[in-house]
C-alpha cells in the first residue's frame, strides 16, 4: 500500500533533500524559501537523514554566499544541497561553474522563477534555469508535485553515480506551491536508491591534510583547454546513467520515467515538446485530442542537460511531421529559444547525417509561453496544435498573450475544455489574506486527500497588496490524478465561496460558476435581505446558471463561538456541508478530526472553540430562495473615478480589475517605465473603522499625519475665506502659533477610502478629553456610514491649495506635517512601521528626490503594479524611483549620484562657456546658488526657468547640451532605501563601499530586524533571542551594530531613529542627514507584522525598544567635530525598563519561552547585559571631548 500525502512541491523536494544530505546552505528567495524553511525546521526538530544524523542548516548572507559555502562543504566531503530561484540562482552561477568543473556531486533544487528585466516578477518561468546552461550542471525537470519528489531522489542518486552536479527544477508557485495528493516515497526506497559506496567515494575525494591535494589551480594556455575537455566522458555517460537510475526507481516505486517521455498517438503527426508544469496541461489536452481522433503527441523533456539527441529522437514516433517546441523563457535577440534550438539541432543533425527515422525532415517551430506564470490552458495548447496544421506555421510565436506589436501571438479559444477538466470538481474561494481562507482550503485538501480515495489539488492566487490582500483559492477534486496546471476558468466552478461582501462589487466571480453551481456568501445580511445586496449582473447570473445560493453571517458566528474574527473554519464547514464532496455527517466529522489533529497539542480550548464554531456554522447556514428576476438597483461601480488620467483609465484600471491578462503588448510600456501617483485611484475601502477628527479637542500637534503609515490623515493650512464653499461636514479650526500665519485655519482630513483602519493615529494622539480620558481628538468610528461624506471632504481637501513650502518650519512637527506627502496609500501592511519614514522623506525632499530601492517590502508596496504610492505635486514634480536588485542597491544609488554630480559639473562648464550668451548675472547666480533650504531651491528653479527661456535663442551646440542638463542645476536628493536584509546582509559589501565613498547620498535602512518580505527569515539585524525562520530556537548571536560600523568612517552622518519613540529626533535626523553633503545613513526602527504582534502596538513597541536600551537613539554629525563638539549626540536616556519588559510583549521573543524556556532565559540575560553595556559605551563615546587638543610639544632631547 502506497502512502498518500497531501503536500506542495517545495515540501516534496525538500523532504528528499533533507533526507539525503548533511550540509544545507540556504538563503531565502521566493518561491524557493519554503524548501529551506522546511529543512531548517526539520533539523531544529532533530529529524535525521538517511544516515541517522541531523543535517546542518546554515543561512548565508546571499545566494552567492550559500553557493560558496556549499562549494567549501562539498570540497570537505559533505553531502550538500541548497534551494533557490531567479536572481538567487544567478548569484550562484560562478560557483556552479566551479562545482561542476571539479566534478562534484550535488543537487541544487530550483523553484523556477522569472528574472528581473523590465520589472521584477516572483512568478514562474524558466529564464533563471536557462541562464545556467553553461555551468556544467545537469538539468532535470519535474512537472508536478509528485515528480518534484521523485526527481529529487532520482537526481540525488544520479549525481552520486555520475559525479555531475544536477540542477533539479520545477515551476515556481505552480508546482512549488501547489498542494496535491501524491504518493510519498518510502524511506526504504530512498535507502535502496542511494549507494553508500558512492557516498564514500565522494568523501574520499575530499580535501584532507592526511592525503593532501590541490584543487582550484590557475591554469595557463598550455592546459586549460584540455582540462575543460577532460570532463567529456562524464557528460557523455550521464544520460545512460540517469536512465538506469530512473529504471531502478521504477522498479522500486512503479513510477517509470524516461529522459524524454512521449504521450499521445503512436502515429502522431503533430507533436509539442516542452518541460515543466505546462506539460501536465498538455498531457491532459493530448489525451483529449487523441480521444477525439487527432494524431497528436507530446514530448516531455526531463533530462535537459546533458541533452541526449538520440533519446529524444527515439521517443518521437516516425510519423511526426510537425513539431512545436515551447520555451518558458525569452532570449531577446535570439532566433529562437534554447529548447527549440536544441530540438531543432537534434532533429536536423540526425536527418542530415542520414540517421533519422523520419522519412522527411519534420517542420519545427518554436514558441514562448507562460512567462511570469502566464496561464497556459488546454485552449492555448490546442491552438499550438492547430497552428501546426497551417501551411506556414508561425515560428517564434507566443501563446497566452495578445501581441499587437510584432504579431507573434497565436489566437486561442478560451472556451475549449479538455475532458479531464470536466471530470473534476472545481471550487473557488475569494478571501482576504488575513481571514485564513487559504489555510482552511489547504486543510480541506488534506481532509479530502487523506480521508477519501479522491485526488485533490489546491492552488492559491494572491494579489500584490499586503494590507487587505485578496486571495483566490482554486481547488480541484477528482477520481483521477489531476494534471490541470492552470486556474479554474469561466463556467467551471461547481462551488464558489465569497468570504467578504466587499468582493461582490469588485470581482465578477460568478463568471466562473458552472451551471447549477453552489454560491456561498459570508454576509451580515440575513437570508431575507441578502438578495438585494448583490449587484444586478450577479443576480442575473444566479438566475441564468440556476445557481443555489447560501448565506451565513460568519463574523457573527465566529464572535459568538469565541473565534473572534476568524471565519475560516466556519466557511470551510459550510463548504463541506453544501458542496456534496462528502456525505454531510462524514464531512463534519472529518473537519472536527482535522481540528483536533491540528490544534490538539496546542490546547483543548482551541479544539473546543473550533468544534463550537463548526456546529454553529451548520446551525446558521441558510439557503436563500432565488427570485425569478433581477431586483437590485445597482451594478459594479467603475474601477476608477472618471477624472483619472487616460493611462490609468486604459491600463491601470484594467489591471486593478484583475483583467490585466487581456491587455495587449502595445499597452505595456516597453522599457518598464510607468507613471507615478496611481494608488490614489484605487480607493480600496478596506478599513472597517476610520479615525474621526474632533476639532474641538485637537491641539494641532501634527503627530497623527506623522505616524500614519498609509498617508491617510493629512493636514493643510489655509485662509478660512478659501473654505467658504466647503462641504457641510468639512471640519477645520483656527490655529495659533508662531509657525502659522495670523487667522489661519487648519484641517486634519482622513482619506476614508484609503485608510486601512490601523488606529495608530488614535494611538499617538496626545489629547485626552478631560471629561472622558478615554476619548481623544481622533476616535475610531465605522467607515461605511462615513464613506460618502468623507469622500467628498477629502476631495475638497485635495483641491485646497498647498501651503507654501518656503513658509514651513521643517523642524517643528506641526509645521513640517503641512508639507505635501508624495508617498501615499501604499499597499503595505496595516500599521506598517516602515512607511512613515518614506512618507516623511517624501514630504521633506520629495520634489527633488531620486530613490534607489532595494528589493524587499519597500519595493513591493512601493513599486508592485498595478499602482505605485510614489506621487507628484501640483507642478508634476515628485520622487523618481527605481529598483535595481536586492544585492546592489547601494551601488545603484551611488550611480545615480555620480551621474547627477557629473551632469551638474558639465552643466556648470556649459554655463561658463555660454556665459556671454546667457548673461553673466544669471550664470553667476546659477553657479553661486545656495540651495540649502526651500527658498534657495525655489529661487534656483526660477533661475533655471529663466535659463530655459534664454537657451533656445542661443544657436550653439553647447546650448543644446545645456537644455538637456539644465534640471541638474537644481539640487537633487539621492536616497538609497532598503531593509535590513539588504543593508546588513546581501548588500552590505556595496553599502560599505558607498559609506566609504564620501558622495552626497542618503541611505535609509528600514530595519525590521528580519527578512520581512520573504516571510520572516533571520538577518544579521535580528536581535539575540528573537525567533525567526532559520532561528527557530532563538537567534543565539547579537544584532550587528551597523551604526557603529558607519561611524567608524568619521565622515558619515549616522542616525539611529525610532519615530514612535521620539518623533522630533526622527525629523531632525532626516533634515540633518539630507543637508550633510557627504554620505548619510539613517537606521530606522520599523516594527513589522513579521514579529507576530498586532501592529496597533507599533508605537509602544518602539518605545519599549528605546527605553530598554535595545534601540538607543542618537545622531552622529561629522559637522560637529569641526566645531570641536562631539559629533555623537545621544538622544535617548539610560535604559529605564528591564529588557524583559521589552521582550515579553513581543511574540518574536516570547514564543521562545514556550518552545525553549531555558534558552530564552539565557538569551534574555545576555541581551540585558548587552543593552546596558552598549548604552554605556555609546554614552562614553558621546561624552568624549572634541576640544582642540593642545599642540603637542616635541619632547626635550635627553641631555
Amino acid at each position, binding site marked *: 500500500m502506497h502512502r498518500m500525502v497531501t503536500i506542495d512541491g517545495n515540501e516534496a523536494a525538500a523532504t528528499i533533500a533533507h533526507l539525503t544530505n548533511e550540509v544545507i546552505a540556504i538563503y531565502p528567495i*521566493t*518561491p524557493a524559501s519554503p524548501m529551506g*524553511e522546511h529543512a*531548517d*525546521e526539520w533539523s*531544529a*526538530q532533530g529529524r535525521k537523514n538517511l544516515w541517522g544524523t541531523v543535517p546542518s542548516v546554515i543561512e548565508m548572507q546571499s545566494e552567492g554566499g550559500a553557493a560558496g559555502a556549499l562549494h567549501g562543504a562539498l570540497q570537505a566531503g559533505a553531502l550538500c544541497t541548497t534551494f533557490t530561484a531567479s536572481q538567487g540562482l544567478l548569484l550562484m552561477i560562478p560557483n556552479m561553474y566551479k562545482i561542476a568543473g571539479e566534478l562534484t556531486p550535488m543537487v541544487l533544487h530550483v523553484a523556477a522563477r522569472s528574472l528581473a528585466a523590465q520589472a521584477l516578477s*516572483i512568478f514562474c518561468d524558466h529564464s533563471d534555469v536557462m541562464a545556467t546552461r553553461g555551468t556544467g550542471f545537469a538539468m532535470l525537470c519535474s512537472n508536478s508535485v509528485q515528480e518534484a519528489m521523485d526527481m529529487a531522489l532520482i537526481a540525488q542518486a544520479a549525481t552520486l553515480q555520475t559525479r555531475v552536479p544536477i540542477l533539479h527544477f520545477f515551476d515556481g*508557485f505552480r508546482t512549488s506551491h501547489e498542494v496535491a495528493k501524491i504518493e510519498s516515497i518510502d524511506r526504504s526506497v530512498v535507502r535502496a536508491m542511494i549507494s553508500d559506496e558512492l557516498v564514500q567515494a565522494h568523501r574520499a575525494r575530499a580535501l584532507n591534510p592526511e592525503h593532501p591535494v590541490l584543487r582550484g589551480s590557475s591554469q595557463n594556455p598550455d592546459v586549460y583547454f584540455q582540462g575543460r575537455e577532460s570532463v567529456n566522458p562524464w557528460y557523455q555517460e550521464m544520460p545512460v546513467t540517469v536512465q538506469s537510475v530512473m529504471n531502478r526507481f521504477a522498479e522500486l516505486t512503479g513510477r517509470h520515467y524516461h529522459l524524454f517521455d512521449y504521450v499521445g498517438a503512436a502515429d502522431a503527426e503533430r507533436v509539442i515538446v516542452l518541460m515543466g508544469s505546462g506539460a501536465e496541461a498538455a498531457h491532459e489536452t493530448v489525451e483529449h485530442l487523441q480521444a477525439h481522433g487527432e494524431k497528436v503527441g507530446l514530448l516531455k523533456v526531463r533530462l535537459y542537460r546533458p541533452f541526449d539527441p538520440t533519446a529524444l529522437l527515439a521517443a518521437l514516433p516516425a510519423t511526426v511531421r510537425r513539431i512545436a517546441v515551447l520555451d518558458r523563457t525569452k532570449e531577446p535577440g535570439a532566433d529562437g529559444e534554447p529548447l527549440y534550438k536544441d530540438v531543432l539541432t537534434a532533429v536536423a543533425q540526425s536527418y542530415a547525417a542520414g540517421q533519422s527515422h523520419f522519412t522527411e525532415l519534420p517542420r519545427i517551430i518554436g514558441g514562448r509561453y507562460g512567462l511570469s506564470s502566464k496561464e497556459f490552458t488546454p485552449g492555448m495548447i490546442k491552438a499550438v496544435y492547430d497552428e501546426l496544421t497551417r501551411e506556414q506555421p508561425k515560428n517564434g510565436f507566443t501563446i497566452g498573450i495578445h501581441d499587437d506589436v510584432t504579431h507573434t501571438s497565436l489566437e486561442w479559444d478560451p472556451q475549449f475544455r479538455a475532458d479531464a477538466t470536466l471530470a473534476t470538481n472545481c471550487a473557488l474561494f475569494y*478571501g*482576504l*489574506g*488575513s*481571514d*485564513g*481562507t*487559504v*489555510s482552511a482550503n489547504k486543510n480541506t485538501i488534506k481532509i479530502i486527500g487523506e480521508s477519501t480515495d479522491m485526488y485533490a489539488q489546491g492552488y492559491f492566487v*494572491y494579489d*500584490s*497588496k*499586503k494590507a487587505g*490582500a*485578496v*486571495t483566490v483559492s482554486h481547488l480541484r477534486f477528482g477520481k483521477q490524478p489531476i494534471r490541470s496546471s492552470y486556474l479554474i476558468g469561466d463556467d467551471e466552478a461547481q462551488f464558489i465561496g465569497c468570504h467578504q461582501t466587499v468582493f461582490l462589487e469588485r470581482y465578477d466571480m460568478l463568471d466562473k460558476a458552472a451551471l447549477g453551481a453552489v454560491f456561498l456568501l459570508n454576509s451580515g445580511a440575513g437570508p431575507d435581505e441578502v438578495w438585494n445586496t448583490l449587484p444586478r449582473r450577479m443576480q442575473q447570473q444566479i438566475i441564468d446558471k440556476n445557481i443555489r445560493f447560501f448565506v451565513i453571517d460568519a463574523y457573527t458566528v465566529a464572535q459568538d463561538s469565541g473565534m473572534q474574527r*476568524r471565519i475560516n473554519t466556519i466557511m470551510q464547514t459550510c463548504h463541506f456541508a453544501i458542496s456534496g464532496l462528502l456525505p454531510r455527517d462524514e464531512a463534519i466529522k472529518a473537519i472536527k478530526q482535522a481540528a483536533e489533529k491540528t*490544534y490538539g497539542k*496546542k*490546547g*483543548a*480550548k*482551541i479544539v473546543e472553540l473550533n468544534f463550537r464554531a463548526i456546529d454553529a456554522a451548520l446551525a446558521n447556514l441558510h439557503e436563500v430562495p432565488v427570485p425569478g428576476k433581477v431586483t437590485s438597483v445597482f451594478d459594479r461601480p467603475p474601477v476608477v473615478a472618471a477624472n483619472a488620467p487616460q493611462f490609468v483609465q486604459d491600463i491601470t484600471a484594467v489591471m486593478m480589475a484583475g483583467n490585466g491578462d487581456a491587455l495587449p503588448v502595445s499597452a505595456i510600456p516597453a522599457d518598464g517605465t510607468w507613471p507615478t501617483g496611481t494608488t490614489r485611484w484605487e480607493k480600496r475601502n478596506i478599513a472597517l473603522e476610520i479615525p474621526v477628527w474632533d476639532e474641538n479637542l485637537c491641539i494641532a500637534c501634527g503627530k497623527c499625519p506623522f505616524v500614519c503609515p498609509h498617508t491617510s490623515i493629512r493636514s493643510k493650512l489655509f485662509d478660512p475665506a478659501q473654505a467658504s464653499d466647503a462641504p457641510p461636514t468639512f471640519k477645520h479650526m483656527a490655529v495659533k502659533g508662531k509657525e502659522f500665519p495670523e487667522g489661519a485655519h487648519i484641517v486634519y482630513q482622513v482619506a476614508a477610502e484609503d485608510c486601512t483602519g490601523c488606529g495608530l493615529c488614535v494611538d499617538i494622539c496626545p489629547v*485626552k478629553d478631560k471629561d472622558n*480620558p478615554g476619548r481623544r481628538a481622533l476616535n475610531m468610528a465605522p467607515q461605511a456610514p462615513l464613506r460618502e461624506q468623507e469622500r467628498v471632504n477629502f476631495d475638497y481637501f485635495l483641491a485646497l491649495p498647498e501651503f507654501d513650502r518656503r513658509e514651513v518650519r521643517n523642524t517643528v512637527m506641526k509645521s513640517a506635517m503641512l508639507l505635501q506627502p508624495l508617498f501615499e496609500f501604499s499597499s503595505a*501592511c496595516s500599521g506598517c512601521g516602515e512607511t512613515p519614514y518614506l512618507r516623511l522623506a517624501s514630504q521633506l525632499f520629495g520634489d527633488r528626490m531620486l530613490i534607489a530601492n532595494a528589493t524587499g517590502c519597500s519595493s*513591493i508596496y512601493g513599486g508592485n503594479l498595478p499602482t505605485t504610492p510614489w506621487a507628484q505635486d501640483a507642478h508634476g514634480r515628485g520622487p523618481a524611483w527605481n529598483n535595481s536588485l536586492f544585492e546592489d542597491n547601494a551601488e545603484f544609488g551611488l550611480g545615480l549620484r555620480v551621474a547627477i554630480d557629473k551632469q551638474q559639473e558639465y552643466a556648470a562648464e556649459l554655463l561658463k562657456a555660454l556665459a556671454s550668451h546667457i548673461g553673466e548675472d544669471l550664470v553667476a547666480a546659477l553657479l553661486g546658488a545656495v540651495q540649502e533650504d526651500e527658498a534657495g531651491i525655489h529661487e534656483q528653479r526660477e533661475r533655471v526657468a529663466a535659463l530655459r527661456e534664454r537657451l533656445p535663442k542661443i544657436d550653439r551646440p553647447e546650448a543644446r547640451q545645456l537644455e538637456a542638463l539644465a534640471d541638474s542645476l537644481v539640487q537633487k536628493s539621492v536616497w538609497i532605501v532598503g531593509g535590513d536584509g539588504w543593508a546588513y546582509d546581501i548588500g552590505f559589501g556595496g553599502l560599505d563601499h558607498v559609506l566609504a565613498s564620501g558622495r552626497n547620498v542618503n541611505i535609509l535602512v528600514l530595519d525590521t530586524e*528580519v527578512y*520581512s*518580505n*520573504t*516571510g*520572516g527569515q533571520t538577518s544579521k539585524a535580528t536581535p539575540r533571542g528573537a*525567533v*525567526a*525562520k532559520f532561528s*527557530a*530556537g532563538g537567534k543565539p548571536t547579537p544584532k550587528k551594530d551597523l551604526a557603529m560600523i558607519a561611524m567608524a568612517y568619521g565622515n558619515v552622518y549616522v542616525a539611529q531613529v525610532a519615530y514612535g519613540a521620539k518623533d522630533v529626533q526622527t525629523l531632525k535626523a532626516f533634515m540633518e542627514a539630507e543637508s550633510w553633503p557627504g554620505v548619510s545613513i539613517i537606521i530606522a526602527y520599523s516594527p513589522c*507584522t*513579521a*514579529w*507576530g504582534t*498586532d501592529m496597533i502596538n507599533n508605537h509602544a513597541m518602539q518605545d519599549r525598544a528605546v527605553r530598554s536600551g535595545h534601540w538607543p537613539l542618537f545622531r552622529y554629525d561629522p559637522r560637529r567635530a569641526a566645531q570641536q563638539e562631539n559629533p555623537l549626540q545621544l538622544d535617548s536616556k539610560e535604559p529605564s525598563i528591564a529588557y524583559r519588559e521589552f521582550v515579553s510583549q513581543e*511574540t*518574536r521573543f*516570547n*514564543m521562545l519561552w*514556550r*518552545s*525553549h*524556556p531555558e534558552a530564552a532565559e539565557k538569551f534574555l540575560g545576555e541581551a540585558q547585559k548587552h543593552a546596558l553595556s552598549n548604552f554605556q559605551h555609546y554614552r562614553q563615546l558621546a561624552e568624549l571631548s572634541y576640544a582642540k587638543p593642545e599642540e603637542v610639544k616635541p619632547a626635550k632631547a635627553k641631555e
Partner: protein
Amino acid sequence: MNLRTRYLGLELKNPLVPSASPLSRSLDTAKRLEDAGAAALVMYSLFEEELQHDHDVMDSYLHNQSLGHAEATSFLPMHGDMPSKQDRYLEQLQRLKQTLGIPVIASLNGVTPGGWIEHGKALQQAGADALELNVYYIAGDVNVSGADVEQRYVDVLQELRHHVTVPIAMKLSSQFSSVANMVGRLEQAGAAGVSMFNRFYQPDIDLDSLRVAPQLHLSSSAESLLAMRWIAILFGRVKLTLAATGGVHTHSDALKMLLAGADVVHLCSTLLLHGPQRLKQILHGMKDWLDDSPYESIDQLKGVLSQRHAGNASASAYARANYLQLLDSYLPSVGV
C-alpha cells in the same frame, strides 16, 4: 521540642509552609526551602487568566500569521513542541515531587467555575498532595449580591470536591460579611482547610499618563494582624485546618499566628526579600522562643490565645472594642 502539626490532613514536621510564590518555579530554590526547614510547599499559582492568556497567545501564534501574500504565507516558525502553561506547571509539579521529600500543594487561582475540575484532576494526577484554591474574585457587579459571591465559592469547591480525592484548601479574602459563617459553609462543602487571607493587589492611578496601573507591594508584618484576628475567632469553632497567610515576616509573627490558632503559617514576602535562608532563621527563632516558653509542642500552644480560649479581656480584644480604643489612642502629628 515537638514542632509537628497537621494541615489538610497532612502530617508536617513544623508549621512553616512557603506559600504560592515564584520561589517554587526553580527546583533549586525549592530544594533550598526544604533544606531550610520548610514543612511543605505551596506551588506558585496556576492562574485562570494566565491559562486564558496562554490560550490566546497560542491562538495568535497559530492564526495571526496569515498575511495572504504570495511571498510570505507565514512568519514565525511554529516549533512542534510548544507546551502550554498548564503542561509546564504539571511538569514542574512532577519535578518538585521527585526532588522534594516534603508535601507539595498545588495552587489554582481563578474566578469562573469552568475549567477547575479539569485542572484539579490533572494536578492530582501529577502528584499534588493537596490543592489550594484561590478564588480571586472582585465582586464589582452591582447585581451580584454577597450571597451570590459566597455561593460561587461553595459551588466551585463542591464541583472540584466531587472529582478529586486530595484535600482542598480554600484561600480566602477577608472581604466577606461573615467570615466565620463563610468558613463554616466551606467546611461543610468539603474544604479541608482555609488559608487566610488572600491579598488583593490594588491598582493605582498614574497621574502622568492618566491611566490605571497595576501595583505590586510586598506585605508587611502589620498586615498579619488581620489574619491573626480571624484565626483566633475561628479556632475551635470549625474543624477544618487553618493556615495564616499574609504579613508573616518574623518568628514572632509566626508564633502569634500559632497562638491565635493557626495550624500552619505561610511565608512569602519575607522569603522573596531575604531568600530561602530566612525560613531557617524564623524556625530557629521559634525554637529559641519555645525553649524559653512553657510549651513543649506546637500542639500545646496552638490556639491558646484564640478568642475561645483567651480570657474575657483578650477575647473582646478580637472584637469591636479594639477598634474604639485604637482610634482614641491615635494622636495625629502636629499640624494635621
